[in-house]
């Protein structure tokens, strides 16, 4: 089953795209898209980068660490932006929490 809904994104969250939402590079239009039921969303560059880092293993704090290092930017500001972006996606049903590993 999919992970829990109504998720609240925090530094410790490990969010992933749910099965019905697929991140894909559209070769024809040369843009990244998120494919979902009856929706095609066009995430911007930063959103794509964040979503690629959200692999279900990393938590949001670790995603912010990586971006802070890469862009030599203040971690707290990046963390706040990442949480806001992911929470918005979660509220719209396009994000889920990775399950705890059972193995």
């Amino acid at each position, binding site marked *: 089953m999919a992970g829990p809904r109504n998720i609240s994104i925090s530094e410790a969250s490990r969010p992933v795209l749910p099965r019905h939402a697929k991140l894909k590079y559209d070769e024809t239009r040369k843009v990244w898209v998120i494919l979902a*039921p009856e929706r095609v969303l066009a995430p*911007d560059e930063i959103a794509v980068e964040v979503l690629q880092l959200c692999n279900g293993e990393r938590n949001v704090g670790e995603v912010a660490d990586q971006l802070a290092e890469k862009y030599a930017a203040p971690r707290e500001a990046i963390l706040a932006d990442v949480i806001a972006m992911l929470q918005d996606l979660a509220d719209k049903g396009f994000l889920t929490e990775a399950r705890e590993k059972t193995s």
Partner: protein
Amino acid sequence: MSDVLGNIPPGISDSLAVLEKQRSTAETFGIPLAVLLEITHRCPLQCPYCSNPVELDRSGKELTTQEWKKVLSELAEIGVLQVHFSGGEPTARKDLVELVKHASDAGLYTNLITSAVLLTREKLSELADAGLCHVQISFQGVEEGLADRVAGYRNAHRKKLEVAKWTREVDLPLTVNAVMHRQNLHQLPDIIQMALDLDADRLEVANVQYYGWALKNRAALMPTVAQLDECTRLVEEARERLKGRLTIDYVVPDYYALRPKKCMGGWGRQFFNISPAGKVLPCHAAESITGLDFESVRSNHSIAWIWQNSEAFNRYRGTGWMKEPCRSCEFRESDFGGCRCQAFALTGDAANTDPACALSPLHETIFKQAEREAEGEINRFLYRNFAGGTLESENDA
């Protein structure tokens, strides 16, 4: 079903714009993002509002497995991103798993739009393994009595509930598609709860659109204004309450609107579908417009050529074909004069303004007629079938 990509909400967030909205209306038509594949018109249900044309394609005319595979490869190649396997009842085709697999392998996002009554748990697992991304199951109500009567099929509702449960068990995401009309709108609160109980991610509250079969059944289906207002209120309340839990898409009947809907995002602008016999159509009702010749994937033209160059797609594309009051209207590029099929069905000329628009000279007449029908006593259905329809027995209505 709702217009594919036609009722997209405003931007998902600042960083996540909806792709279609980024194109200006002045821009020329690109290849659609999503395509509806009506792989068969065969269906065990007989819903009186079926979106298929009244003239159904017989099974002998259907594209073969190889022909559909060629279509799928071609769609992926020209830049289509999503395909909806629909019908009729798509699971009535024995090659569905094979087609879904072919589509997935070609990189397409695959959606199954189904009545569910022919599905088994095993078939669902096979579809999931073949790469199916999403399942959409139609419901006719919340309890067997009414739901089975609307579907014209015994035990349909019980079977749908069972299949919806299996869908989630095999970890496929589920949309509940609730088709709403005068005779079931009172069940909407329970339908929303049913979608939650079935663990659906998404609910489509789709008021019937009055073309084809539904137009024949308008007197039995048309809601009252009061019902529709209550429906809108319930949807808005549920959207707020269920934010992040259940996405609700809402389609209203355009008879009670003042502005017509931007049907299909405009003729030949962002949508096409392929009929069981392989016709490439600007919308699933387009064959109801007589005098238009739709090209087939069996012709020697490519799908991209048909989309860009065929006479039928260009006939009502853009604004050049418009007559008054559309031609000089400030909204001509926001709604493209509404729906061509509805204009044809209600006025006899597809180039007329859709009477759903308050600026149409026929708007008032049609609105009043719909209101009278909604208050009327006719509840008997004309069921959809290959024989041109069968009237419900008086005792059952």
